[in-house]
Structure formats: structure tokens, C-alpha cells
């Protein structure tokens, strides 16, 4: 079947056909016959979501820099096109050369959130690639996965052949070199996987055996062959200024979620919020220099023509030379009307001053994330923000002319009581009061309170904690709904059922592979899209697989329990996480180590952290 021809015929009937056509500016065209390694970068969500993701952009351009490699993209087809594909027998294909996925050497999935796993399995089905690693042969592609969810690879351990743990820029090239050697040798796929397991940062689940205790918890995870490492340590790029960064970014035709030039300013975070996985697994903090960033920004605009640059990091305000960088960028791009956006900004007097210079922020309103409603609970989670800080910032914003405020909270945090929930409502009303104080009335004010439900994540101090039961999630949401009524306040919340499933898969083990298979058979996909999500199908899948989801989501773990994800070493030590858990239980905060002494998280052993260098562990 010539896919290009069939597309001409079917795409006029499909919504947003540009999702499937490729040919965007700066997308890479190569002759696939002339390369040695053909790799599909797969993002298990629709084009406009996947194309907004920075990791894919970096890997795509990095790999295509090599003449012997052709990296192409593939996204999850939206349900209308999936129907057409199934009816017409069109296999899942790459955007650039329209090659069926099954013909690639590698298919690499980016795992950004647990609820995209059903899209991974669906994409494999659409590609005609057997779901389980053991059913695939030498003629099938090797399946790779990376991204934050790879820090607990176990729920996909029977599906994915190898996981890349941590930052992939270096290890992916080492893997390709190994593959080039392998191709010459005509040895088996398993031989390649075994050798790959020897590359630092690569986890090959087939070479590990999991033994369980009688109560269903993990007893041990053991390598099954000599030479396979006991634990796989994550990889990091030590010097970001010298790391590859793409400037000839693909410019999509259709409107995507983040349609702008992305400038990554640093990696890692030292704040130490105890619920936050990103804050732990992306350590240590490494920054790019202002000079380097200015050059990248200039190159990016020149080669994309984008009308906006967005700074990317876990917490923009923490970049040590933010003021200088912003002033240089504003000066550089004022002439050609390129705007600047600063997401994840901590709002205080300093950033308000910055924000005033950048009109962009005004449009979207201001976002604050106090996360919890009382000081006690904020101390439990180590969110170092006080109510007074928040109210002062809000007042500053109201004085400067803002009138739309979003407040993000989590419900179901460990040790949360109804006093804390009351606190969420109280804080929202205090924001309204602050507006009245500044403006004399509440005209034009809009306060939106959003709550998500706490999901305990691997490699955080709360990895031992339980998620509250589903009926309790819904009860607390109802409570807040009643409390948050008023002309200026609106309340929205994340679906508790989705948070429950997220909690199952985030701390799941190998037994969940079967659940994913059952869920695929029932047609689950696009679970992150509320109109596609079917909780009842998932519950049937658990029942048929003989797996109790509450065992994973709602059980608090013993201090000594071995976790399925501990075959991975993120650099941050278990002993540190446990110390933090105990401090959380005493509601004791831990100050940000960039301004304080070293708290001994363990990341120092990986080197490269700009705030680690001057310190000795305590």
C-alpha cells in the first residue's frame, strides 16, 4: 500500500488533517535507503500535544545531525483517523517518509504521564507490532522508552525492550553506535539488548527477575545474568552550555499547544517540595549561560520566524541571571516584535516588575500555586510560601492592573484535614478581600481555584504514602464546591478517577503489564481526554487481570518495603527521602539548599550541580 496516495483520498474526511501530513518547515527529509539507522520518535498523544514537547525536539534534531541516522516523528492518531486507519488497513506510519512503524530499527516512546500508556499500546496495535517484548522477533523494531515515567519502568517492563533513564542526549548516541556494530555482526536481538544493558543509563527489563513476598510486595529485583548492573543509574548532561540544543526547530502549520520557540534555561530544582517528582529526579541544578541563551534565541528566531520565545525550566524565577537575560532578550527582539513569555514564574515584587515589561503575561492572567490551604500543610509538603507572601504578591498584581488570578491546590495530601480544605476556601476569599482593598470594589475580578488530587510518585519523600480513597477524593471535591461559591470565584477540579489510575500506574509493578493488555482489548485510549476516558473499562481490565488497583494507590508502605522502581537509581538517595518523609510528619520544612547548607540528598555523586560544588554534605 502506498500510504501517501491513500492519505490523499482519506484526509479530506478527517478532522485536522495537518496532524498527519508532515512537510513542516525545518522537518528533516532524508533518503531512508541511504541511512544505517532508522528511528521513529513516538509521542503517545496527538500531534499538537507531542509537538509542544521539548524532549522530542531535542532528540529529533540531535539524531538527524548524524548522516547515518534518520529520525522521524509519529503521534497518536485522533480517534476519527484511527477509525479510518482500521477500516482501510492503514498501518501506523511516520510523518516524514510515511513509512510503517514496523519497518523501523527503533521506535522510541516518550513517557510524560501515566495516562498515556493506553496510547502506547494502541499505537503498537495500529503498527502491527506485538505488544509484549517476548513475542517480538529480529524483524521487529526495538522499542525504547524514556521520559519521567521511565523512572518507574515496571508497568511497561514486558512491553518496552529498553528504557533510557535520565537525560538522553549522550546515551542515545552510544546506543546507536552499539547498534551499528550489532548490525554488522548479524547476531540476535537479545544479544543486542544484553550489550545495551551494559551502557550506563539503560535498563533492559528482560534481564531482571522480580521476586515477591507473600503479601504481594516486592521482595527483590535481581539481574539474571553476570554483567547486568544491579541498579541503573540515571544519566545527566554535566555542562548544559556544551550540550546540543536545536535552533532549527520544526514550525508546525496547525495551532499546537505551545506554538513558540522554546529556550531551555536550566535543568533541575533545589526547592525540595516533597510531593514533586520533577524536583527530585531532575537534580542537580545546571544552568545555561546568558551568552549561550542569547545566541540560541537569536538563531531560533532567525530559523523559525516565531513571534514568541518562551523560557523553559521547572521554575523560571530561580534562574540566577533572570533579570539580565530578560532585559537582553527584550532589547534584542523589540524591533521585530517577538514577544517573551515566562511560564512557571514565582510571583513576587521582582517578577511583577519583570512582568510589567512583558505584556505577554498580562493576557493570560496570573497563576499562583500555594498547593495547600494552611501553613501547617504547606510545611508538611515543604512548599516554602506563606500566606502573607501570597497576599502581598496578589496585591502587587492588582495594583499593577491584573484582575484574573488562578490558584492551584492539591487535595488529599498526606495528613490533610478538613481544616486544610477550609483553608483553601479561606485563601480564595482573602484574595477577593485583597482586591477590594486595592480597588475599592470587586468589579472585574476573577479568581479561579483549581484542585488536582495528590498522586504519590516514585523517588519522592511521599513515595511511602497512600492516596486517599476515591470516594474520599470525591467527598472533598464536593466540600470545596460548596465552600467556593461567589460571584468572583470559580472552582474546577481534576477527575478523581483519573488521579486514582495515575496513582496505580505511577507506583505500579510488572503485574500491571497484563492490565494494560486487557485495557487495550477493551479499547481504552486517550484516557487523559475526559470525553474518551472510561473508568468502567479500566476496572474490568483490573478484574480480568486479577490485579487489585487499591493495593498500589491506597496502601501506605512500610519504611523497609522494597519498591519496584528501585532498580533505578535517580541519584537522590532513599535515606534522604525517608528523612524528608519523617520531617514532613513533624511538619518541619527543609530550606532550599541553594541558600542553606547541603541536606545530603545524594545527587552530589553525579557531579555538575552548580549549588553542590561549593558545599560539603552534612
Amino acid at each position: 500500500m502506498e500510504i501517501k496516495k491513500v492519505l490523499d483520498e482519506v484526509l479530506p474526511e478527517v478532522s485536522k488533517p495537518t496532524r498527519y501530513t508532515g512537510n513542516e518547515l525545518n522537518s528533516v527529509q532524508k533518503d531512508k535507503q541511504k541511512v544505517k539507522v532508522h528511528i521513529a520518535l513516538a509521542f503517545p498523544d496527538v500531534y499538537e500535544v507531542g509537538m509542544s514537547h521539548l524532549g522530542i525536539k531535542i532528540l529529533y534534531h540531535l539524531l538527524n545531525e548524524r548522516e547515518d541516522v534518520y529520525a522521524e516523528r509519529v503521534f497518536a492518531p485522533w480517534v476519527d483517523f484511527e477509525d479510518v486507519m482500521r477500516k482501510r488497513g492503514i498501518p501506523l506510519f511516520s510523518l516524514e517518509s510515511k513509512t510503517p512503524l514496523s519497518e523501523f530499527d527503533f521506535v522510541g516512546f516518550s513517557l510524560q504521564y501515566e495516562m498515556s500508556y493506553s496510547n502506547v499500546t494502541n499505537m503498537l496495535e495500529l503498527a502491527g507490532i506485538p505488544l509484549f517484548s517476548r513475542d517480538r522477533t529480529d524483524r521487529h523494531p526495538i522499542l525504547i522508552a524514556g521520559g519521567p515515567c521511565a523512572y518507574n519502568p515496571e508497568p511497561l517492563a514486558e512491553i518496552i525492550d529498553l528504557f533510557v533513564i535520565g537525560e538522553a542526549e549522550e546515551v542515545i548516541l552510544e546506543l546507536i553506535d552499539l547498534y551499528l556494530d550489532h548490525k554488522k555482526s548479524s547476531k540476535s536481538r537479545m544479544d543486542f539488548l544484553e550489550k545495551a544493558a551494559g551502557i550506563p543509563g539503560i535498563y533492559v527489563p528482560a534481564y531482571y527477575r522480580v521476586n515477591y513476598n507473600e503479601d504481594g510486595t516486592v521482595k527483590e529485583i535481581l539481574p539474571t545474568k553476570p554483567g547486568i548492573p544491579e541498579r541503573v543509574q540515571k544519566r545527566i548532561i554535566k555542562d548544559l552550555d556544551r550540550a546540543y540544543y536545536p535552533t532549527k526547530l520544526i514550525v508546525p502549520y496547525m495551532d499546537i499547544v505551545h506554538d513558540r520557540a522554546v529556550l531551555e534555561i536550566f535543568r533541575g530544582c533545589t526547592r525540595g517540595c516533597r510531593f514533586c517528582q520533577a524536583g527530585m529526579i531532575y537534580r542537580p541544578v545546571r544552568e545555561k549561560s546568558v551568552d549561550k541563551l542569547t545566541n540560541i534565541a537569536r538563531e531560533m528566531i532567525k530559523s523559525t520566524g516565531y513571534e514568541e520565545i518562551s523560557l523553559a525550566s521547572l521554575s523560571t524565577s530561580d534562574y540566577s541571571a533572570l533579570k539580565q537575560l530578560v532585559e537582553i532578550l527584550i532589547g534584542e527582539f523589540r524591533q521585530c516584535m517577538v514577544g517573551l513569555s515566562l511560564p512557571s514564574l514565582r510571583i513576587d515584587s521582582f517578577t511583577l516588575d519583570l512582568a510589567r515589561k512583558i505584556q505577554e503575561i498580562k493576557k493570560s492572567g496570573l497563576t499562583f500555586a500555594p498547593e495547600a490551604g494552611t501553613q501547617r500543610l504547606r510545611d508538611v509538603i515543604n512548599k516554602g510560601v506563606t500566606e502573607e507572601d501570597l497576599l502581598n504578591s496578589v496585591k502587587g498584581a492588582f495594583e499593577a492592573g491584573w484582575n484574573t488570578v488562578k490558584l492551584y491546590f492539591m487535595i488529599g495530601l498526606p495528613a490533610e484535614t478538613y481544616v486544610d480544605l477550609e483553608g483553601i476556601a479561606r485563601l480564595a476569599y482573602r484574595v477577593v478581600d485583597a482586591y477590594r482593598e486595592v480597588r475599592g470594589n470587586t468589579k472585574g475580578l476573577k479568581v479561579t481555584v483549581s484542585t488536582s488530587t495528590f498522586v504519590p510518585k516514585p523517588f519522592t519523600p511521599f513515595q511511602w504514602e497512600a492516596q486517599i480513597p476515591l470516594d474520599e477524593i470525591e467527598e472533598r471535591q464536593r466540600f470545596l464546591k460548596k465552600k467556593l461559591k461567589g460571584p468572583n470565584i470559580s472552582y474546577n477540579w481534576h477527575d478523581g478517577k483519573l488521579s486514582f489510575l495515575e496513582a496505580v500506574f505511577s507506583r505500579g509493578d510488572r503485574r500491571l503489564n497484563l492490565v494494560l493488555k486487557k485495557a487495550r482489548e477493551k479499547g481504552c485510549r486517550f484516557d487523559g481526554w475526559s470525553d474518551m476516558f472510561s473508568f468502567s473499562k479500566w476496572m474490568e481490565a483490573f478484574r480480568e487481570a486479577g490485579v487489585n488497583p487499591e493495593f498500589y494507590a491506597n496502601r501506605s508502605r512500610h519504611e523497609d518495603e522494597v519498591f519496584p522502581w528501585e532498580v533505578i537509581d535517580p541519584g537522590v538517595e532513599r535515606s534522604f527521602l525517608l528523612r524528608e518523609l519523617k520531617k514532613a510528619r513533624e511538619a518541619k520544612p527543609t530550606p532550599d539548599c541553594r541558600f542553606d547548607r547541603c541536606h545530603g540528598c545524594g545527587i552530589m555523586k553525579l557531579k555538575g550541580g552548580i549549588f553542590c560544588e561549593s558545599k560539603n554534605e552534612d
Partner: protein
Amino acid sequence: MRVRMKIRKGEEVKFISQLDLMRALERAIRRAELPVKFTEGFNPRPRISFTPALPVGMTSDAEYMDVEFAGELPLDRILARLNSCLPPGISVLKADTAEGKIPLSSVNRAIYTVVVDAGGDATPELLDKAIAELLARPEITVTKTSKGKVKNINISPLIYSIKITRVEGSRAELRMELAAGQEGNVTPPVVIKALLEYIPTITVCRMNRDELFLVREGKRNDPI
């Protein structure tokens, strides 16, 4: 200076929407470092205007845009620089001053080339007959859904001519002259849909907008 450009939208980009095409051109102008003028106010936009939207899925040799530049620039330089910065499938065919030309919003007629496959047992002769019958009808009612509302419209006065220009096996190339623009608009897919009443096996292979212009008092006025 205000410059009018004639733009080609090729196979590679036939599925992108009018809005996508506009954005792609705006970004190309920035890459070309051409000094475009911006609107005043809170959310400044480049001063660019376009001809009415082309249906998605169709190529075109006759899209037009007006761009207002800050200062005087040689036209051939604008053309060359912009063409070197455009993505595959989009190109500028011609550039000229926009002064003294018809407003882009005033165009009211377009010529298309539509290649169809009659399909099944249908022959080009049958197609010819069907076209003649369609054109002879005083009223051709088609239903149109826009923004969830279903509307019946009579497209008969919007069709100026349909001719078979080439035949190859069961394939035929049609030349359609149709109303386009704000006063009245009908597109080839809608006309083909009407022809399906006579020959239900017709499928479209290729559609291209060849020309777009204004007819006023019986006289043709081209945008460039």
C-alpha cells in the same frame, strides 16, 4: 509601501487551513527579515491581508496577499528573499505594488481545474451529459452546514461554466468557473456533490484554483 503578492499553495500544504497559511507567511516574512508594519495597540499584528479562504485539500496558483512594509524596498528583492524563506509547497509567484489595484476583498470569481474519476461503468460521455443536465437546471439546492446550522442554498446562479477539458480513460479534467468571495461562494467539492446525483461513483483526484479575479460590469479585473 503596500505590496501585493500572488501565492502558490502546492501539494505539500494543501491540507493546511487559511489561518495556517497566513501564519506560515507571517513567520516567513520574519525569517526573511523584511520590515513589515504592525498594527497599533495592545496586541500588535503584522499588517497583512488575504483573499478569501481556499477549501482545505485544494492546491492553488492564485492566492493573494497584501503586505504593508515600513519603507521602500525593491520588489524583486522582496520576492527573492521571501521565496528563499518559505516552507516547501508555498511560493510567491509575483509581486507588485498594491496601489491602484482592486481590493482583495472584492474578488468574486474563480477558475478551478478539477480532475475526477467517473468510476464504475460511467464514461466521460455520461459525465458530459450529467454536467449539461445540471447546468440546465434553474435550481440546484444543496445543504450546507456551517457552525452546526444546516442551510439550503441554490447554487445554480453561482455556477458560470463547467467544461470537460481532457479525458483519459475514466478520468476527466474539468474546468469550473464559479462564484467566489463575499457576495456568493461555491466551491468544486459542492458542485461535485451535486453531480453525484447523476453519477454516484465520481471521486475527486485533484483540485486546483487557477485564477481568482473580480468581474464588474462584465469586465474582468485581476488582482495583479
